[in-house]
């Protein structure tokens, strides 16, 4: 074999360098991993339209941002051609099932999502049968990861967040009685309410009133009037942001000055935007803080805000974290669905905007909840 001419060698070297130059100056230059050059598609199922769209849109935005970051090198996939294929399940169980089927038969290496726990119960089994790994980013009900040996999630469940929330607030506020108000027709809010009930009982707190509402309710005057009459030391909300903000504001209107707390659902700046001063002081057991000092979090928040004009909420952050996790796996050379499942199993730690995450033996995320308190214009850590 003839030795390549010197200028050919120089040309080859130049060609190798040009892509790096074109990618441009970036804080995290892409490396060349074992999967370099391979095309890896990851399917994302999110409710971009329909009743769960308020969460799904944040998730889509996060993955679109991640796609941008992959192109610009901010997210390092080790030279592989990684992209997130976001599809809208329209808050419709049938479409969730169809999308799971699509992603398990079109060569996708991994499935991220779906948005709601109920959808996960419908769709994850399809992935399990097809031996495709699923990583949930917003499914927080019990039993999701038990659906199959390759079902993981990066979202802290209520079961993980609530005990810490109760313990911390009880230590500071020292309450003896509580009233709970929760949504009884939504799997998340109902689980939230049930877990709070159990944890409060365990902590020796007497529940003096329990009220329920339905998703979409706007008028809580009747329930709050009853709660006020029961004079609890603390009011617990098992709610998502839209109902929580109104409960908090209407409580203030009725002259209720009691301490309030809630779970993941309250981790949204919308609550202060809506209820203003009434929201100050509400404690939120969360999985992410917008002010968190985690790897790339501040820059993520900044870029998200620049691209979309709104701040990311916990849904957006958890979705982006899944994107970071995926990029890390691909960088380590995992490009097919078989490799993904094993890789998730063997993962030691991933640095994400949620902080460092790992998985426990039941495939739930191992991370510490953050106990936040709503302050003027945002959140602070609660002490």
């Amino acid at each position, binding site marked *: 074999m003839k030795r390549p001419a010197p200028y050919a060698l120089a040309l080859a070297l130049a060609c190798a360098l040009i892509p790096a130059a074109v990618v441009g100056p970036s804080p995290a230059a892409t490396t060349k991993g074992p999967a370099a050059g391979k095309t890896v598609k990851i399917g994302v199922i999110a409710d971009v339209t329909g009743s769960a769209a308020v969460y799904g849109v944040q998730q889509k935005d996060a993955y679109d941002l991640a796609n941008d970051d992959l192109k610009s090198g901010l997210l390092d996939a080790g030279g592989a051609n990684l992209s997130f294929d976001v599809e809208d399940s329209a808050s419709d169980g049938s479409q969730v099932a169809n999308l799971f089927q699509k992603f398990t038969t079109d060569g996708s290496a991994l499935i991220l999502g779906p948005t709601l726990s109920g959808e996960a119960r419908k769709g994850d089994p399809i992935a399990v049968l097809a031996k495709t790994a699923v990583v949930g980013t917003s499914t927080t009900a019990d039993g999701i990861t038990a659906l199959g040996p390759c079902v993981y999630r990066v979202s802290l469940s209520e079961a993980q967040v609530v005990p810490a929330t109760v313990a911390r607030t009880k230590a500071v506020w020292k309450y003896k009685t509580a009233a709970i108000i929760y949504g*009884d027709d939504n799997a998340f809010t109902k689980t939230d309410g049930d877990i709070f009930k159990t944890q409060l009982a365990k902590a020796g707190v007497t529940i003096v009133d329990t009220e*329920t509402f339905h998703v979409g309710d706007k008028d809580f005057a009747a329930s709050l009037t009853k709660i006020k009459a029961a004079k609890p030391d603390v009011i617990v909300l098992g709610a998502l942001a839209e109902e929580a903000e109104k409960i908090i504001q209407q409580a203030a*209107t009725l002259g209720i000055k009691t301490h309030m707390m809630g779970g993941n659902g309250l981790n949204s700046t919308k609550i202060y935007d809506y209820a*203003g001063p009434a929201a100050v002081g509400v404690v939120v057991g969360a999985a992410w803080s917008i002010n968190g000092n985690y790897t790339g979090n501040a820059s993520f928040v900044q870029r998200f805000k620049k691209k979309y004009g709104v701040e990311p909420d916990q849904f957006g952050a958890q979705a982006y974290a899944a994107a970071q996790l995926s990029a890390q796996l691909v960088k380590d050379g995992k490009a097919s669905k078989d490799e993904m499942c094993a890789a998730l199993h063997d993962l030691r730690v991933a640095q994400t905007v949620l902080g460092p995450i790992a998985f426990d033996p039941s495939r739930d995320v191992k991370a510490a909840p953050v106990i936040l308190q709503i302050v003027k214009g945002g959140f602070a850590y609660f002490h």
Partner: protein
Amino acid sequence: MVAQQLVNGLFLGAVYALFAIGYTLVFGVLDILNLAHAAIFMLAAFATWSLIGAGVPLALAAPIAIGGAGLLGIVLDRIAFAPLRRRGAPNLIPLISSIGMAIIFGAIARGIYGPDERQFTLGFLQAPPLHAGPLTFTIVQLVILANAIVFMLGLAWVMRSTALGRAIRAVAEDRIAAALLGIDLERTIAATFFIASALGGLAGILTALQYNSVQVDMGAQIELKGLAVIVLGGMGSITGAVIGGFVIGMVETLAVVFGLSEWRDAISYGVMFLILILRPTGLFGKRTLRTA
């Protein structure tokens, strides 16, 4: 606490009543259940929000949006109902047609505004609550109640004392006889839709102000509640819609008071079902239009 709960029920009922009037008016005159009514309810609220966002004061934005809602009602009729009337289609078809229009309106709203909830940044919405003895309520709630009463009385006057009102009542009673009497059917029907949709729009704006929340899905709940109201009140009866609205508002509040909040909606639907079985004409209805 009981007094406060009664007040709560009163304010809740006022909005139900306003919404239901539009529903019952169209049914009384045309035997159509207009399932796009809730979409107009929502669009009027968004229109007001957009106008206020563009700097128009509320006192001007609201009337514009209400008028716009009325016009939209006429458009709705022209597109979705009038062609079916000409053809003599059975009543099921306009119902489906209205579902189609509701979906379209919703899609348009979602396209423009997205799924997120919007708020108003109006001063008086943030004002501290008022107290009267043991009762607490807000300025907004008073405004709503006042508006509701004024418009209901206004409608009653129109129905009783104007030629238009008489024409509407005549068409509701017997369309053919009314035509024979020289009443312009299509114009009367258009006027009916204008009034009904304007009131629906007003209900939407007031609801949006009351809870400081404008959202694409905001009509979904009230649509089904509205059905319960008009069944209770008597389909086609405006008095019935008003009284039914307050009764349902009260029933829902009392359900909470008695610890039955999980069954709150089931109670409203149960009432609806029982009325239909035992007295389908409801409290005040014949299948013609009756006024206050």
